[in-house]
């Protein structure tokens, strides 16, 4: 059966009812457009968040602890012995021979590694006391493993080395305490050390829990607060490919024996909410596309109903049933294809429009533009799903209408 004949008939049907056709196309266009917008918005914000996370956090953190408590000598000696609540004999904290470990890691790591001494401390300023995480770093190595240097709002990372007992604090914390670069605060360690420190810089990472609860100093200062000279209790790794963190962390842990946590593992709870969110978004987008195809269903139903006589004529002339049915599928495909094209434009326009909108975040106090992720995948997937929905929606009314026996219609007309 000549396909262009079927297309001609379909085209004639579609173009002779412009208004209905436009409504159908508009339905498809809106479904596709909103889907693309939603996908761009959702993935945009997600990727933006992940970027922030990946930028701010070490990709892999090697900590001076082990995943399971080490077995006691007695247990090693006598299998039947079970000991609990035993003080660890090797309880001296810190990573042993950190320089050796780092050198060994650098030899194969696709990225870099920097040591740090992490502890909890209290900042006391003007009577206000706030618990913080103090991270002692080496500024020269730090630039290789974190973006801290680029996140500075006041002062510079290098200023840490220019003053005694210098610290850099998060912007939110600085606001809370009411301090600026140049002020002094009291830092109190867990072992009771109390040291007056001068604030030489303020940073903003964008992650609230970091900006509000983390401060940086030189290693020596942190070691002073911890009360253990020369301690390195954390190695932070930055990788060329952040997505390989999980695999690398496993390798590192196997090599050095210390607990190595990838950023994915550290944020597993967050990432799992992403997968829930993805599921919800996909469901909503699928529903939108499906709903938009109902307009097509409606139109094809109407056309097949109006064209009962034409269907009977074509069948009586000797056109096969499937060929006649295909006419209406082609009609839906025409409506769908034009609708999808319009939807792509609409989707792009909406994404563009949204990207111009800025949102004030009361938690971070920052005004940021909506992050939109532009991906051809969104357009292709929305288009494919939509065309399937449209032709599927046309199939049922078309099948019903073309099944009719021509004699019934011809008799009815005479």
């Amino acid at each position, binding site marked *: 059966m000549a396909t262009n004949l079927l297309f001609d008939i379909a085209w004639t049907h579609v173009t002779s009812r412009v208004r209905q056709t436009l409504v159908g196309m508009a339905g498809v266009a809106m479904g596709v457009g909103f889907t693309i917008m939603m996908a761009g918005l959702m993935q945009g914000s997600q990727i933006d968040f992940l970027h922030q996370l990946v930028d701010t956090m070490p990709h892999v953190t090697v900590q001076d602890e082990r995943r399971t408590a080490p077995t006691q000598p007695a247990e090693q000696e006598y299998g039947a012995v079970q000991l609990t609540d035993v003080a660890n004999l090797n309880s001296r904290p810190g990573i042993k021979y950190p320089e050796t470990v780092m050198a060994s890691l650098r030899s194969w790591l696709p990225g870099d590694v920097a040591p740090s001494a992490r502890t909890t401390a209290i900042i006391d300023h003007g009577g206000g006391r706030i618990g913080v995480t103090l991270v002692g770093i080496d500024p020269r190595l730090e630039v290789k493993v974190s973006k801290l240097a680029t996140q500075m709002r006041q002062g510079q990372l290098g200023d840490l080395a220019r003053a005694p007992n210098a610290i850099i604090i998060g912007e939110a914390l600085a606001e809370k305490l009411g301090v600026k670069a140049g002020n002094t605060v009291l830092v109190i360690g867990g072992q009771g050390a109390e040291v007056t420190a001068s604030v030489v810089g303020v940073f903003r990472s964008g992650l609230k829990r970091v900006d509000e609860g983390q401060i940086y100093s030189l290693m020596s200062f942190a070691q002073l607060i911890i009360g253990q000279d020369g301690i390195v209790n954390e190695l932070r790794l930055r990788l060329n490919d952040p997505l390989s963190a999980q695999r690398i962390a496993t390798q590192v842990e196997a090599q050095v024996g210390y607990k190595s946590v990838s950023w994915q593992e550290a944020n597993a709870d967050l990432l799992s909410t992403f997968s829930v969110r993805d599921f919800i978004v996909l469901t909503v987008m699928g529903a939108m596309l499906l709903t938009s195809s109902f307009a097509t269903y409606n139109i094809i139903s109407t056309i097949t109903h109006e064209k009962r006589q034409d269907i009977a004529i074509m069948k009586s002339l*000797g056109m096969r049933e499937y060929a006649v049915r295909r006419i209406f599928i082609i009609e839906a495909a025409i409506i769908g294809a034009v609708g999808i094209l319009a939807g792509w434009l609409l989707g792009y326009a909406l994404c563009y429009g949204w990207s111009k909108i800025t949102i004030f975040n009361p938690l971070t106090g920052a005004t940021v533009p909506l992050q939109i992720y532009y991906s051809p995948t969104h357009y292709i997937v929305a288009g494919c799903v939509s065309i399937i929905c449209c032709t599927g929606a046309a199939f049922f009314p078309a099948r019903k209408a073309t099944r009719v026996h021509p004699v019934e219609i011809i008799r009815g007309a005479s």
Partner: protein
Amino acid sequence: MTEIALQSVGLVRRIEGGVSHTLVDGIGLSVKRGEFLAITGPSGSGKSSLLYLLGLLDAPDEGEVIICGQPTSKLSESERADVRLTRCGFVFQFHFLLPEFTALDNVLLPMRAAGKMGDKEMRERGLELLTSLGLKDHADKRPNQLSGGQRQRVAIARALSNRPEIIVADEPTGALDTASTEQVFGILRDIADSGRTVIVVTHDPALAARADRRVHIVDGKIAETSAGHALTSEATALINA
């Protein structure tokens, strides 16, 4: 056997349902090549049903229709459609043209569906057919721009387009005025004279009288067969009573 264009053997067609009804009741009929056969009968006699069976538009419950020596009872619906497309041309009481298409496009439809000719060849044949039926100037008009007689002539041109052996017409003049009736009938007569088989269902005794042969159907059975020219006016009055 090539003499016989169409033959039916013991055709039976029933309507099943709340009230079962036999529309066509064991009709056997042979139509020669080039013959102009008129089927007459009162309303509800089953003459149209018989015509649909002969034209393979409908399938019999019993019996056989043999078209050009080919039995058709075992054919699938698609194969029957193919036979309709190439061997039978249909003309209905109402023109049944596709309203959005021009006269020429309507004539081209069966040829394009068959897909055996090139575009140029089809177009030439379509125009030739329309010209021969006096519609040369109306080729690009849509059905609603044509008169009833013109539409019916377009429908005849469409029926002829694939050069079918058999033309099947169901009350082709039923909705036309006298002049158009005369014209359409003349065309059908010419088609028969040119060697094709024409089977017409009609109410009009005057037209039936001009056929080569007339078969009168009553209650789904052949009540009378006669040469058209022999039909007397009294008999005609009787038939129409």
